[in-house]
């Protein structure tokens, strides 16, 4: 580094009018900038905006991706609204989301409060809670298909010790969807803990001390100091976890492939099946657009609520 600066100083000497040379170098700024952003722009717009529009066109066509597509207008969307399989997929996705989101956030908050203390081994405890989050959905799916295997699985062995009859788990259509939520919680809670712990560590200690000097008990301190301070994290997690769970696919594909008896087909699984197994691409694109529309409405809705909140706070 030092030598470089020395070279640079030597270079400067012959320049008579530094202002003019600077102006000349400024001139190239826009072209330099474009050459820097070009790869990103090409890939992000070319494989983001272009496919998005293409997909919209596709959703108005009947297409099997091989023979020429036919224009069908809104027929795909109309068919979707009557399709019992799609309605079931939407239903399963909503059940999954309605369970996973509040449970992961509440669980994450509880665990973060529990892990936010200075005791021995706390680093180890935190690591154990976080570590499932980096395990891929595929690996989780494979591992838990084994643990919940109805013949040789560990879960039934544990139930057996407690004299509880063996369960079908993934083979039982009334249990499979809830089991997926449980596994997603095992890995997903860690992320909420990471986010909440970061938030907890940002709360100034004086604030908590002041509250306790004012006579606030643990409950009151949590309610009036900690919980409001964690609000941005809660809103973020609410949006993030909802978007994630509405798009769940990998783990369903690995564990149940939508079964048993279609009890775990979720929206993305339906879309994937229509596009790449039945080759009903136009129909699949329409299904994807319904999902995207739902995601958009939801995230705008939550953002508006948050903005309303901020206004209320600033007025106070």
């Amino acid at each position: 580094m030092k030598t470089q600066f020395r070279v640079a100083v030597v270079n400067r000497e012959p320049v008579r009018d530094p202002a003019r040379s600077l102006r000349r170098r400024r001139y190239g700024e826009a072209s330099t900038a474009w050459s820097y952003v070009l790869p990103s722009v090409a890939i992000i717009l070319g494989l983001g905006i272009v496919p998005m529009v293409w997909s919209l066109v596709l959703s108005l066509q009947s297409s099997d991706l091989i023979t020429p597509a036919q224009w069908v207008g809104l027929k795909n969307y109309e068919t979707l609204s009557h399709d019992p399989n799609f309605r079931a997929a939407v239903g399963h996705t909503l059940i999954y989301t309605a369970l996973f989101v509040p449970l992961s956030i509440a669980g994450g908050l509880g665990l973060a409060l529990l892990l936010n203390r200075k005791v021995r081994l706390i680093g180890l405890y935190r690591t154990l809670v976080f570590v499932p989050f980096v395990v891929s959905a595929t690996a989780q799916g494979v591992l838990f298909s084994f643990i919940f295997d109805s013949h040789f699985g560990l879960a039934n062995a544990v139930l057996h010790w407690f004299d509880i009859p063996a369960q079908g788990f993934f083979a039982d259509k009334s249990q499979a969807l809830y089991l997926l939520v449980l596994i997603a919680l095992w890995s997903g809670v860690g992320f909420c803990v990471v986010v909440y712990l970061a938030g907890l560590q940002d709360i100034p200690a004086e604030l908590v001390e002041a509250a306790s000097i004012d006579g606030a008990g643990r409950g009151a301190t949590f309610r009036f100091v900690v919980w409001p301070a964690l609000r941005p994290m809660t809103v973020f997690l609410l949006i993030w976890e909802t978007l994630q769970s509405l798009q769940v696919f990998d783990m369903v594909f690995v564990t149940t492939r939508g079964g048993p008896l279609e009890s775990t087909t979720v929206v993305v699984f339906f879309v994937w099946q229509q596009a790449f197994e039945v080759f009903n691409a136009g129909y699949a694109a329409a299904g994807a657009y319904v999902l995207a529309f739902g995601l958009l409405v939801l995230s705008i809705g939550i953002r508006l609520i948050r903005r309303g909140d901020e206004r209320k706070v600033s007025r106070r």
Partner: protein
Amino acid sequence: MTTLPVHRRRRWLPFSPWHFVLAPVSLLFGLPLVWLVLSSFMSNAQINRFPPTIIPHSLHLDGYRYVLDNALFPRWFLNSAIVAVVVVIGNLVFGILGGYAFARLRFGGSRALLALMLGTLVIPFQITMIPTFLIMKDLGLVDTLGALMVPSLVTPLAVFLFRQFFLSLPREVEEAAWMDGCSRLRTLWHVVVPMARPALGTVAVLTFLATWNDLTWPLIAINNDHNYTLQLGLATFQGQHRTEWSAVMAGNLIAVLPVLIAFLAAQRTFIRSLASSAVKG
């Protein structure tokens, strides 16, 4: 936040009573992974009985032998590693260039372009996957590792994270180098990038996790089992060997181990990255 000032109680234990809650809870999270490791070293005879062996008397390598003889796990491992390395490097290089341009350089339309790029952050993958597949097909990349690299070679998140980081750096250092006659690219490489260590770590970690763990896109883009990634290979292998649990768990451990090692080696970076992606999102 520090813990609440509590009135001193008489200590009736040599350790904090919180361990009674903390230990079982964290064990609950750790046990499935312990079981993954244990069962990968068991024989099928030890596994396929009810109730299954919990603590094996002897360790076996049958599972690993089966996996290496009957599947392409080493090949898949290599594929995953190649794809992950290329995609991480791509995101670092193009993310730095794009992020720097958006943070420091003035050019017409930069605001609109940035807004458009950030807009693509919210496009769900499901609506782009079919046309992306068709584009990859037209480029002749379907069923090659290229199809797995190109679409994620740079992500709007990487560009955005670098832009935010560069905005937080003081301009003076760069301007000094610039005045001394350093070219833009040299300034970027020798002055800005060395200061951007935390952002480099964040982008590398988030990109590596997403790429290594992805199943959906390889499932769509790859047919030939020689070009599978580890996740796709594992999912397929499990589908075909439903009762060979020790082999399946051996394969599973192979697929998980790199991420686990990376996480344990760089835990701070991982956690900071995940938390910071939350605050920025």
